[in-house]
């Protein structure tokens, strides 16, 4: 199994939207490597002919009647928002400077 480098941890953190610090990169690089090595043994018994299980209860396409039901009101839905404006969630800018 490949060992995981500091650069790879930085890449994972970026993918996972975690602005980790330099100190954390050092800490996590070591720890993730140990964890991944300790779980890599799953490959030892996972033969090609074994079907994967994603879920203990094999359910597909659970349908319900398409009926109108009460839902959260606007005020309730916004009650936990970090910022709201005009009955909407207010978010930081979503486009780059050049856009």
């Amino acid at each position: 199994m490949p060992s995981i480098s500091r650069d790879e941890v930085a890449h994972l953190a970026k993918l996972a939207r975690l602005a980790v610090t330099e100190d954390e990169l050092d800490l996590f690089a070591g720890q993730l490597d140990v964890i991944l090595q300790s779980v890599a043994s799953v490959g030892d018994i996972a033969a090609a002919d074994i079907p994967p299980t994603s879920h203990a209860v094999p359910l597909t396409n659970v349908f319900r009647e398409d009926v109108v039901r009460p839902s959260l009101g606007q005020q309730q839905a916004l009650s936990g928002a970090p910022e709201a404006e005009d009955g909407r969630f207010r978010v930081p800018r979503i486009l780059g400077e050049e856009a």
Partner: protein
Amino acid sequence: MIRQTAAELAAKIHRGETTSVEVTQAHLDRIAETDGKLNAFLHVDTEGALAQARKVDEDVAAGRTPASPLAGVPLALKDVLTQEGIPTTAGSKILEGWRPPYDATVTRKLKEAGIVILGKTNMDEFAMGSSTENSAYGPTANPWDLTRIPGGSGGGSSAALAAHQAPLAIGTDTGGSIRQPGAVTGTVGVKPTYGTVSRYGLIAFSSSLDQAGPCARTVLDAALLHEVIGGYDPMDSTSINAPLPPVVAATREGAQGDLSGVRVGVVTQFSGEGYQPGVLRSFEAAVSQLKELGAEIVEISCPSFDYALPAYYLIAPSEASSNLARFDAMRYGLRVGDDGNRSTEEVMSLTREAGFGPEVKRRIMIGTYALSAGYYDAYYGSAQKVRTLITREFEQAFTKVDVLVSPTTPTTAFKIGERTNDPVAMYKADLCTIPSNLAGNCGLSVPSGLSDEDGMPVGLQIMAPALQDHRMYRVAAAYEAARGPIGGASL
């Protein structure tokens, strides 16, 4: 009064010998007196609890039938389940101050049953941990020894029970977070069959494994609570549309003390290296007791169970990395670094960095790695195959025996701080409990006495096939009656 079982308290309340307000106040007083030392509760809802208690008392005074056999009895709710208007954090800074606008189905059922919710209990952040040390709000202490952990992730609930702060509690079990805390605090914890207790309003960690369940000091109290919270729920698309197993009736049958004809399988993989000798001695004594009660004891080998822990620590983080993407600083919860110049993506990254603790970050990154192109087959794909093998071995085992037994956890409660810098050592606390989660089966932990070397509680784990929860209650109730009292926590 606080030493009594939930069943006893309910009977007295319903007969008018005491009131729910009196019982609730006694537990609130106990919390006020002891929680400075324990830190079992993140929030105590004094007013809400007493209001619910008064409602039950009015029903009793007016001669109305109580809403359930547990109406009027107080309960501690793990902080991973939403309760409308009550702070719900899942042990994380990222949800500090959040007041959910809705009740989880479990919460709604508790309220409808007239159960008094005292407050929200401490836990490892997003239920990731085996010691409650990963809570952003400080660790919880074990009432048997304040220098030791109360298990995790549901350490607040188990500590509250052991310290008589509440006679009932709710936990959630993804890899053992109900059973392992039960074992190390000398209390009863049950992971019901996956899909039999609704996950609606349970803040998701690993959706294919998460399961809420009852915690109590006796098997009967757990069974009574199980029947309150269980059942089909259209709000949870993985809910099983089948009748709930008759766990209360099975408990009463088991309490008669006869296990003739019951075949009990001892899982041979769960002993040997890494197991504390005192835990194994307690387990062997429990197995002898089951034999005396008439059970037939068989040894069962499940070789793939040795791979359950690594499979779990790939599957659970993979699902977590996806589930925790919802904490994006936009709709609820913490927002950090929004200075008017930074982009949404930057604010998101800064918020998640500030709001998540180290274990949550580790698991998100492990999950991201295991799911990424190039590594998927070796890690997540292989783990899913192991899951198939474990499920098959359970199926084979249950053609030979009715229930499987093992120690709930390899050691008694370890010291606070002992494993915090060694994630892999911490993960081993869940060695025996994880297979049932992977297969979607049910599992229960009942105290089997104290370990002779450190005087700390040990748990006997009883496992049964999916939708056969009543089997393990029957065996646990018979064992509990034969075992007798194990003593109580010193606090």
